[in-house]
């Protein structure tokens, strides 16, 4: 019998249906012949060139952003009216904060009472975030003998020489007059945080601005006479620990309607508000150190 060497596909199929033949599965499908890299290269070269890609990306970005804005605008149009007194946001929580805030926290500035008494752990977390950020920047940018090249050291020396040569008398005089006033104003804002607008964060930022002004006019060397890296770490860590201990103490004695031995004082006086004043001072010092630390690390790479 003269069997055909090659059966047709149909014949194969019929045999397979009849159970006379098993389908030969190719053991390994090899993709080696198809060079995907080549296809991709050609695709990028002829069809999807850099310019077209850029334009496509731009158009898609604009489209996505427009759709995003449109969705958000639609949401805004469904929000409660701006400035309305009966909005769902001003609920019983707000009523409690405002009506019994002065009595319960001793601070006449209700926002300060809120963030440093009712929600003090939140503020503790914020201070920790700041501390972590400055520690990360120290890790990334602080210069030591391992990550400085000869050229950088030479440039720094040149900078110092230029700093010494030019005497901006007016600038230096004015800045030296202004810096102490900035410190004083910052200290005022920190100390009066619980009875007037302000508080640890804004006052600390003002003190930090004063430090930055002083350092930028008088140079880092003069700054290091009273503000070294050790001072920086010491202040930050001490303030965070103080905050932690004070607030932990008040949490166990003042919260949950347990009696708190720290007197609230007369609302409106400087020494009032229980723990709010020391906490404000801690936060202010952390913020001032952090802001100056950012400046020093970004400009010179050392504190």
């Amino acid at each position: 019998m003269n069997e055909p060497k090659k059966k047709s596909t149909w014949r194969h199929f019929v045999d397979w249906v009849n159970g006379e033949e098993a389908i030969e599965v190719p053991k390994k499908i090899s993709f080696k012949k198809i060079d995907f890299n080549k296809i991709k290269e050609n695709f990028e070269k002829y069809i999807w060139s850099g310019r077209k890609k850029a334009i496509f990306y731009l158009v898609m970005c604009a489209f996505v952003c427009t759709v995003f804005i449109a969705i958000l605008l639609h949401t805004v149009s469904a929000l409660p009216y701006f400035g309305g007194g009966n909005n769902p946001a001003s609920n019983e929580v707000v009523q409690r904060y405002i009506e019994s805030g002065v009595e319960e926290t001793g601070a006449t500035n209700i926002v300060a009472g809120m963030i440093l008494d009712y929600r003090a752990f939140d503020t503790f977390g914020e201070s920790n975030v700041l501390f972590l950020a400055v520690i990360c920047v120290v890790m990334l940018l602080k210069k030591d003998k391992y990550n400085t090249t000869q050229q950088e050291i030479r440039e720094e020396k040149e900078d110092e020489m230029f700093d010494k040569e030019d005497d901006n008398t007016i600038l230096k005089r004015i800045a030296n007059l202004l810096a102490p006033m900035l410190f004083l104003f910052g200290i005022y804002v920190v100390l009066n945080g619980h009875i007037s607008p302000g508080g640890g964060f804004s006052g600390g930022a003002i003190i930090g601005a004063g430090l930055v002004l002083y350092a930028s006019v008088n140079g880092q060397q003069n700054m290091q006479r009273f503000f070294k890296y050790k001072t920086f770490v010491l202040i930050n860590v001490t303030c965070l620990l103080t905050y932690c201990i004070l607030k932990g103490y008040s949490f166990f004695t003042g919260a949950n309607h347990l009696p708190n031995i720290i007197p609230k004082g007369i609302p409106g006086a400087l020494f009032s508000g229980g723990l709010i004043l020391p906490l404000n001072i801690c936060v202010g010092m952390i913020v001032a150190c952090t802001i100056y630390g950012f400046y020093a690390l970004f400009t010179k790479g050392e504190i």
Partner: protein
Amino acid sequence: MTNLMTNHYEAAAVILFGIGFMNLLLSRNLIKKFIGLNIMDTAVYLFLAAKGYIAGRAAPIVLEGTTASVEKFINPVPSGLVLTGIVVSVSVTAFSLALVQRLYKHYGSLDLDEIMEKAKKEGH
């Protein structure tokens, strides 16, 4: 649409957010990217401040000799939240700019595409 006109602060905040987002996506310069991120942060502050405002009421500071009632003051909760937002945004900005400075020192460029290309070459 009339609602959008009354909520114009929120609408402006949302548009500002979109602008910041677009800046974040489109600019190649890393520092400009982070400027876009900061614009988005600012939009969020504006939105929160607008949500906390109540027409005709004062900032929540109880003056001497007055009694505190809800009818007098605006909502203090968004103010506290904005404070949190500012702190976190400052921290994130400082951290990312430090990373950018390290990248610039290593690759000598702020262009993201260039940095990626150089990093790929170094990898092989």
